[in-house]
């Protein structure tokens, strides 16, 4: 079994130091006309680079752009697809973070590439460590305001996502995480999701795809996953009591979101290692990704780094290597 560590998705774009607060100041200055868009973009790029550098310093094998260019993970996708308009603020699951709810006003249509530029920036900074995360089509529609036919909209979105995944593979992406947290509140929609991913994987040449689930109990889902044509799944273990037992014999690539990124309390590395080692004895997975339970932006920056480093250290312990 090959063991890796990766960032889940988001990374804090602010911290305690004045340097780590440049982006916040830049937004204010842009709003008040004190800096140009070009100057703002420069600060944004530096902030993303800084977040990538920290992820690399933590020791993880795969990094993201922290979704720092995103207002939120939902509107970040919706705003790049024709057919969505921006709506009111809504709470993101059970967090104290708010997303701007998109409204689908006509069937989705492609406007071209979604994340290629973002990905290429990460790749320039981090090379082969670059990975991409995006909110998936099923969850995007479930989080949006929708008066159109869900199945038809999902079918259109599947084609748009498929094209994007193919572009990402051409651009050198080896690993793409697609977040589908809404499935955990809507098991009845499983067949719709499954069909969308059949379209994506059968019609397009995609990189390695992991579907990620969080902020809900994944246990009822595990037995159904065999029918999904993706490479692996990432679970939020903090919401899923009994998940380790359900994963006996699991043979997909597995992302274990076992480091709780909704709380600042630090887990004990060796207790976590013991738990994962017991899980690994019953797995048939080819690859294991040690990762945060969810995006890191719910934590203050210093603790986000500590949690990500814990993932890297845990991965090293599991591999039996140095550096823990």
């Amino acid at each position, binding site marked *: 079994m090959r063991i890796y560590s990766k960032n889940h998705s988001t990374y*804090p774009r602010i*911290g305690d130091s004045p340097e780590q*607060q440049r982006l916040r100041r830049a937004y204010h200055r842009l709003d008040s006309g004190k800096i140009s868009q070009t100057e703002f973009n420069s600060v944004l790029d530096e902030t993303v680079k800084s977040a990538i550098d920290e992820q690399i310093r933590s020791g993880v094998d795969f990094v993201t752009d922290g979704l720092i260019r995103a207002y939120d993970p939902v509107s970040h996708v919706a705003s790049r697809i024709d057919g969505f308009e921006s709506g*009111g603020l809504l*709470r993101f699951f059970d*967090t104290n973070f*708010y997303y701007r709810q998109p409204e689908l006003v006509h069937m989705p249509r492609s406007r071209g590439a979604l994340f290629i530029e973002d990905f290429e920036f990460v790749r320039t900074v981090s090379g082969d460590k670059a990975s991409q995360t995006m909110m998936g089509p099923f969850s995007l529609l479930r989080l949006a305001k929708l008066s159109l036919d869900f199945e038809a909209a999902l079918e259109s979105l599947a084609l748009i996502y498929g094209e994007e995944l193919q572009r990402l593979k051409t651009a050198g992406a080896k690993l793409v995480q697609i977040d589908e947290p809404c499935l955990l509140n809507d098991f009845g929609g499983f067949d719709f999701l499954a069909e969308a991913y059949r379209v994506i994987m059968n019609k397009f040449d995609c990189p390695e795809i992991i579907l990620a689930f969080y902020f809900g109990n994944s246990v009822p889902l595990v037995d159904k996953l065999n029918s999904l044509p993706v490479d692996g799944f990432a679970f939020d273990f903090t919401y899923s009591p009994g998940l380790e037992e359900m994963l006996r014999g699991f043979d997909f690539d597995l992302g274990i979101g076992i480091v709780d990124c909704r709380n600042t309390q630090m887990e004990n590395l060796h207790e976590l290692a013991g738990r994962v080692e017991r899980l690994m004895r019953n797995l048939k997975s080819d690859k294991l990704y040690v990762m945060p339970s969810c995006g890191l*932006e719910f934590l203050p*920056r210093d*603790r986000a780094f500590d949690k990500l480093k814990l993932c890297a250290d845990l991965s090293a312990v599991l591999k039996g290597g140095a550096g823990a």
Partner: protein
Amino acid sequence: MGARTDFKGGKIDRSKLVELEKQATDFWIDFQDEIGIDVSVDGEMYRGDMVAYFAELLSGFSNGGLVRSYGNRYYNKPIITGEIAWPGPLTVNWWRYAQAKTRRPVKGMLTGPYTIMDWSFNEYYPDRKTAALALANSIRKEVEALIDAGCKIIQIDEPAISVRPDEIDTAIETMHAVVDGLHAYFITHICYGAFEKIYPHMLDLPVDNLDLEMSNSDLDMLDLFNKYPFTKDISFGVVDVHSHVIEDVELIKSRIRKALEYIPAEQIWIDPDCGLKTRTIEEAKEKLRRVVSAAADIRKELT
């Protein structure tokens, strides 16, 4: 905000900060009197954040770093690191200051224990419910202090309630712990969540008035009232506080008329969806002015 930054940076001392906070409070009390609002607030000029304010004053908390709320807005998310205790009145002096400036009733404004728990990290209590009930003990003491000072309307903000439907019973239990046996008109504010998952159960909250964000979600919660009538007083949010758009008085009136289709007039209070701190001064003033104007026009229609 600038003054608080200057204070943190040592550029001004606490007495200067308080002086500026009082000036800002005076400004908003005077404005609310000027437009003829029925029930005033002190505007919370002395609070940076609705949870951090209480976390900084209650024992048992440590300061957490900045966490993003939305867009370019951040807050210092506190960490519960020890036993929570009430050190003495936290808001009473400011309430007294504001009430002395106006003949109109000024609401006492508190953040509820469930929300403080949910919007903090917890490194001390064994579980969420225990943490929330510990907070409820302290918030109750603050309510008692406000009532002793003469406050008759107390709002206990619980925006987090709509977020975890499986914990609505905990939220109801903690509200009971705060208010049971105390005599005041109690309001709780809940916003930006999936109300369909907690309604009508949220009517079991032991308060007189539920203050709800309605405009941000295009009044879609009214559909729920069709099936299960709204049985409490409601503070009906008629302007969106997260939008730069200043609503027309006619639009606001249409929202009030819509509310009247579902809830008797005597149960309806009219207000913005939520707090106005994210708006510019001019936006906040104009939104409030139009809320008051619309309410006055509808009152005339009803008499």
